[in-house]
């Protein structure tokens, strides 16, 4: 292992650039002859469009064109597809209402794009957009998912007969009924998994260009992988061959799932660029992010657990309503169903599981994957339910978990929900986390808080997620003229530090300094394939591919070195960047081989470039335990996190500093969801929390110090690197750990229920209500 190789917390290669403002994001790119797009958006959550008058707007200075749905339809531009065609319990596929880039005849949520105005400057476009006269006939709207399922609810999508677009179930209902029939105890909870606005620091942005000579589009846009987007645009939307669209993704300032998907603005701007023969650019304002970026979570769940007299889990039954918004974004129906229900076993031995999910359309912004995508929702249900079970049975909350955990000797363990866990030691992680926070000494600390008039609580969550091994990935590595290497890869960093991690892997292979290891991503002209980044898959899928491609490059180089050293390749060793004839001190450097191969024709050699790939064998199961201790001020309802311990098993860790960064960021987002982030639509479907004045994002001073321990001695058994994935874990463990701690603080005061986000007023009110009730 090299000095900067696997396991070292090396500084990020990206940081110099990012921290000095030298990052190159989509909006930083300026192209000749560019013009600007501004979108006319619906102020209504549901309305019929009776007329659109663009005349006045079109005659404004600088205005180049204004397009509406009619223009797209005439040109045969297709709708945005839903790519997750799940099959429901009745054997029926999810109902997929049309999702046009510009609203046709009807708008379905506030912020729905109705027209695109293109002008020489952004001010001119905005000015003209105000003069586009859209006649709306407002219709009744429904934003609340429970209300949307009422028989007389307004229909969100006129092509469907109800707002229920998928009725899904998984598991064995008969077994579960039997488990409940013989149960000694039953625990039951209802909970809200609140909707969050993703709020990546960099808003969505794009530059759409079209070359009439070659009849070819170029799209610069933030993404989490170019191919998923490119394939949709070519196959479903513009109906063009793959070589007629180049997609380029430069630096991306955060995606969290939200930037995976195809969006209306991309379609409308590409269309406009083709019509105008000029590059059309758009960068979303923060107000547009709130109204048009896919949002996350938004479930209402009831869950029940059957237990025997000793607190062993016999079965669980979960029923969820999932709000998917007004249109089905790319993966939307998969997130609350497949991605979530298959994780309902958590880390436990549960003989019988049944889950049902109703996916509901409402007049709100579409909902899709958000950091963790379905697994945080599942983990939140399970870990809250297990706490309730402990209370019902009268067991310590740590003890009931240990009693029911899948034990190391049970592995590999099939949960019965298409998930086979390969490695880990769940009791050990929990015990270590509890030891670090001094779980057993809590009573004394609670008494101390009480003496200061404060309520203290402690809570934990043992989470597991499924990630990593999805699809396949391909890596190409070339040996550059200067002896460095360039990795071409189809994963897409959104700020995580992929370049650094890959460079560490290749440093171990080539013995090169990190700065000689280059990475190319995000350009369909150079990157030929790629599944992109999502589900914590990049390091595993991209990493193994890169290692394999590196081995091939070294083999090729060995051949050349053999010729240069006049020895049989088999006799040549490669170490620390040198090829050496075994047992001699005759050697040459990799850079000499590189130079030789780049000399050009004449010596019979050509530059070395090798491709290899990796196809997923199995999903990986990162897991861990978050323990959180809090104090509540009953006078104000304010909550303070006093201590926060995380013990994670991510398998092999390539860079502990990058992994810790992922955990910190994830905990911040999880804490935000648990305590601050509240997405509120009113009855008319207006988003009330549509800016940072009303939507509370976590700030640095909301964050506790996260005491993180990475357990690295249990590598994943289903992939060659032993990695499990780290990108989403923090956001999965934090909400249940925090809410379990909060409930622990409030239950002695008589509170029985509190939901996320537990804002100061919610907490204060819960305490008020319980004191008036008692």
């Amino acid at each position, binding site marked *: 292992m090299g000095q900067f190789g696997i396991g070292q917390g090396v500084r990020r290669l990206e940081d110099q650039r990012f921290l000095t403002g030298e990052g190159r994001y989509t909006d930083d790119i300026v192209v000749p002859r560019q013009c600007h797009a501004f979108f006319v958006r619906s102020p209504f959550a549901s309305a019929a469009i009776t007329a659109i008058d663009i005349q006045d707007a079109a005659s404004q200075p600088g205005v180049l064109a204004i397009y509406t749905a009619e223009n797209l339809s005439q040109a045969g531009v297709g709708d945005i597809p839903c790519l997750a065609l799940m099959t429901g319990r009745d054997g029926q596929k999810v109902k997929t209402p049309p999702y046009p880039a510009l609203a046709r005849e009807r708008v379905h949520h506030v912020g729905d794009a109705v027209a695109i105005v293109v002008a020489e400057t952004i*001010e001119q476009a905005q000015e003209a957009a105000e003069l586009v006269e859209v006649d709306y006939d407002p219709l009744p709207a429904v934003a609340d998912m429970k209300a949307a399922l009422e028989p007389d609810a307004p229909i969100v999508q006129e092509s469907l007969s109800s707002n229920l677009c998928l009725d899904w179930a998984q598991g064995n209902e008969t077994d579960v009924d039997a488990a409940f029939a013989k149960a000694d105890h039953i625990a039951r909870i209802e909970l809200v998994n609140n909707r969050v606005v993703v709020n990546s620091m960099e808003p969505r942005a794009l530059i759409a260009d079209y070359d009439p000579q070659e009849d070819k589009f170029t799209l610069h846009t933030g993404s989490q992988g170019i191919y998923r987007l490119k394939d949709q645009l070519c196959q479903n939307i513009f109906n063009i061959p793959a070589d007629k669209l180049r997609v380029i993704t430069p630096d991306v300032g955060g995606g969290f799932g939200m930037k995976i998907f195809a969006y209306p603005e991309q379609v409308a701007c590409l269309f406009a660029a083709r019509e105008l023969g000029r590059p059309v650019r758009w960068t979303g304002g923060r107000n547009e992010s709130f109204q048009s970026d896919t949002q996350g979570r938004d479930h209402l769940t009831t869950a029940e657990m059957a237990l025997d007299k000793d607190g062993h889990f016999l079965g669980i039954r979960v029923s969820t309503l999932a709000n998917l918004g007004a249109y089905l974004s790319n993966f939307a129906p998969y997130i609350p169903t497949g991605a979530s229900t298959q994780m309902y076993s958590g880390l436990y031995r549960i003989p019988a599981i049944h889950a049902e999910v109703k996916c509901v359309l409402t007049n709100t912004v579409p909902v899709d994957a958000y950091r963790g995508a379905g697994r945080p929702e599942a983990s939140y249900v399970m870990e809250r339910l297990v706490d309730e079970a402990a209370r019902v049975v009268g067991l310590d909350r740590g003890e009931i978990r240990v009693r029911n955990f899948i034990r190391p000797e049970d592995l590999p363990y099939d949960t019965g929900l298409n998930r086979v866990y390969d490695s880990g030691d769940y009791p050990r992680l929990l015990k270590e986390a509890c030891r670090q926070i001094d779980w057993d000494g809590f009573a004394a600390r609670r008494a101390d808080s009480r003496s200061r008039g404060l309520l203290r609580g402690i809570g934990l969550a043992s989470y597991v997620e499924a990630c990593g091994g999805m699809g396949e990935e391909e890596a190409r590595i070339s040996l550059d003229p200067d002896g460095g290497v360039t990795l071409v890869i189809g994963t897409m960093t959104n700020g995580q530090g992929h370049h650094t991690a890959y460079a560490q892997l290749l440093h171990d292979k080539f013995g090169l300094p990190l700065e000689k290891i280059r990475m190319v991503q995000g350009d369909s002209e150079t990157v030929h394939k790629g599944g992109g980044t999502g589900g914590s898959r990049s390091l595993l899928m991209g990493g193994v591919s890169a290692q394999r491609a590196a081995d091939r490059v070294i083999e090729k180089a060995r051949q050349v070195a053999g010729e240069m050293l006049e020895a049989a390749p088999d006799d040549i060793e490669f170490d620390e960047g040198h090829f050496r004839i075994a047992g001699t001190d005759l050697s040459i450097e990799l850079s000499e081989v590189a130079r030789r191969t780049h000399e050009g024709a004449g010596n019979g050699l050509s530059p070395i470039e090798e491709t290899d790939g990796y196809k997923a064998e199995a999903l990986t199961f990162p897991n861990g335990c978050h323990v959180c201790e809090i104090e509540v001020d009953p006078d104000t309802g304010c909550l303070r996190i006093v201590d926060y311990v995380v013990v994670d098993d991510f398998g092999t860790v390539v860079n502990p500093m990058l992994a810790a960064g992922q955990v910190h960021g994830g905990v911040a987002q999880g804490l935000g969801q648990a305590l601050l982030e509240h997405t509120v639509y009113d009855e008319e479907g207006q988003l009330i929390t549509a800016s940072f004045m009303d939507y*509370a994002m976590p700030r640095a001073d909301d964050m506790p110090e996260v005491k993180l321990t990475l357990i690295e001695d249990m590598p994943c058994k289903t992939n060659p690197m032993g990695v499990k994935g780290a990108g989403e874990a923090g956001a999965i463990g934090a909400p249940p750990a925090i809410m379990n701690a909060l409930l622990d603080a409030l239950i002695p005061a008589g509170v029985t229920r509190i939901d996320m986000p537990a804002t*100061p*007023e919610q907490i204060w009110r819960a305490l008020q209500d319980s004191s008036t009730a008692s």
Partner: protein
Amino acid sequence: MYNFDYHRPNSVDDAVRARGGSEDATFLAGGMTLLPTMKQRLASPSDIVDLSAIQDMTGVCEDDGRLAIGAMTTHASVASDPLVNQKIPALAKLAGGIGDPQVRNRGTLGGSIANADPSADYPAAVLGLGATVKTNKREISGDDFFVDMFETALEEGELILSVNFPVPDKAAYAKFPNPASRYAMVGVFVAQVGGETRVAVTGAAPSAFRVSEMEAALSNSFSADALRGINIPADGMNSDLHGSAEYRAHLVNVMARRAVESLS
């Protein structure tokens, strides 16, 4: 943002003249409220009269037991000013708790009180200390200055030059920040000044107000316990998704007690 004409006068007289030139003209101080409103196209002034070149409007000076603070003095300057920290530390603390560093380095005392945002912090101090607002035309008692939500006693085109704060014997400010915006959801300023006890509240209602019942109780006994049981009626309190009227009314009592406690 819509187009406008820009003026940057050097004197108070020129500023008032430029402002008077058009009905839709407006003063620009730190721009922390005005510019976002213009960017969102919620305001479309014909003329902007930038006050930043007028020298006499910035800074702190002591005058006969009072601190005169120029209207263009930024929150950051007030927070770090040695004189303010020595004479009225509660005011320095209040200014240092406004917004974030960027906002504090731009936003001004005059802009804040002219705007009279119901959840701004400064109104609590102006009322709580019994300050006097000095304009190009007159002196306005702090007690008369705040009229309603975003409404003050200022006349059309009237320019705030400075605010005169009496130096109190004791004063403290306790703020409960809105979790999202960090403006004051409830802020209570408590002072003993010129033989009077004052309790002023911001954030809770459409406009800053004093609580006479608390003032009386504290005059009797300046202790947090004296405030227990003095409940502010929820009627007339602001109510939004961060804090209902009932919660805000409750917090007035809590924050008042905390302000008093911080002085003992």
